[in-house]
């Protein structure tokens, strides 16, 4: 049986490379983006094969879905404003290609040298899973062990939004109304999407899912609403919108403050000259970012414009 699997994996790997190459190389940009979305879906499949369901969900929702939508919207607006003419496709440049292939070969050798016995942190994660408050190891790592990364990541999202606003990107004008069918579809779909997002968030504790995937689904709902021509009422686009946008990272930061300042004495500071030899002997410090799942709604409305 595993012959079939290895065959499938080989095919999938080749398919990935071929799709990526076509997405970059085809002259028509629109077709390039569609190929890129297909590439994203294949990537999701690859994650499933690598036993990473959480990543597959994230890839499908964010990598393929959201990025694809953003690219398509940008292309639409690009064609409307400036460069209607599509640039001629670049000639094949063998110089850089050769150089890069050589670099790639070197990289491949290094990667292969790691294949036999790559080291990892599975054991430690499994050991500490009980005290992390969730049973899904990826969510445990994401929201607890390396919660600080997630805090910074949320701030990256908020920063990208603020940066986009600071470039005073003009709000999407009201295109031709998309018609009754999409309206009706949306009225049906939106509650389902919000429900699905809540479920994903809750399920993240013990099964593949989690905060970012839920956020991505909500983001997709937002994109659909935009496509259907729905806009926030004017009085909502002021402070309420900014509040909705900053509630997620703000909440996360407040939790961080609460625990950072709360118990300074017992804080996990091993001040003094001791260099930490091994993790065991440090006193269990305050969990800066221990959060029971579902409390800090991620940058929920980050993409709802």
């Amino acid at each position, binding site marked *: 049986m595993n012959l079939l699997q290895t065959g499938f994996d080989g095919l999938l790997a080749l398919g990935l490379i071929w799709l990526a190459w076509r997405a970059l190389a085809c002259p028509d940009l629109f077709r390039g983006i569609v190929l890129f979305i297909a590439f994203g879906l294949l990537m999701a499949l690859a994650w499933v094969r690598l036993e990473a369901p959480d990543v597959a969900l994230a890839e499908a929702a964010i990598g393929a879905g959201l990025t694809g939508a953003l690219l398509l919207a940008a292309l639409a607006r690009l064609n409307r404003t400036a460069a209607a003419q599509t640039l001629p496709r670049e000639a094949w440049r063998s110089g850089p290609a050769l150089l890069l292939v050589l670099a790639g070969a070197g990289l491949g050798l290094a990667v292969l040298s790691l294949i036999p016995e790559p080291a990892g942190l599975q054991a430690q994660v499994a050991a500490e899973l009980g005290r992390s408050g969730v049973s899904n190891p990826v969510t445990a790592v994401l929201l607890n062990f390396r919660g600080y990364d997630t805090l910074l990541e949320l701030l990256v999202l908020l920063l990208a939004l603020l940066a986009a606003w600071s470039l005073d990107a003009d709000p999407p004008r009201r295109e031709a109304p*998309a*018609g009754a*069918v*999409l309206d009706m*579809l949306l009225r049906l*779909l939106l509650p*389902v999407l919000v429900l699905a997002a809540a479920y994903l968030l809750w399920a993240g504790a013990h099964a593949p899912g989690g905060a970012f995937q839920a956020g991505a689904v909500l983001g997709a709902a937002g994109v659909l609403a935009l496509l259907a021509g729905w806009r926030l009422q004017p009085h909502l686009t002021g402070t309420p919108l900014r509040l909705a946008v900053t509630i997620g990272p703000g909440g996360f930061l407040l939790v961080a403050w609460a625990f950072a300042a709360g118990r300074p004495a017992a804080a996990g500071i091993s001040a003094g000259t001791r260099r930490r030899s091994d993790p065991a002997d440090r006193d269990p410090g305050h969990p800066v970012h221990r959060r029971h799942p579902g409390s800090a709604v991620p940058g929920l409305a980050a993409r709802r414009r």
Partner: protein
Amino acid sequence: MTGPDYLSALLLLAGALFFLAGTLGLLRFPDVYTRLHALTKADNVGLGLIVLGLALQSGSWLVAGKLVLIWLLVLLAGASVAHLIARGARQRGIPEWRR
């Protein structure tokens, strides 16, 4: 291989056949409208058959219910997307194919 396994294998095979037909239609038909027609009709039925086959395999009503739910969602999405594409094509004034 017990009775239900045979049945689900049969259903999966039929579903796959319908997908094949849909894809053939996509490649062979001359204009966007007929292709839409082929895709939505054949693939939805194909998916229905596959869902039924899998439901038999799953062995629990809950999973079967979820699979049917997925099928309904795809039906809904497929129909409205086909409508939108057709409407978009009509607005761009793409003519129907006449022999």
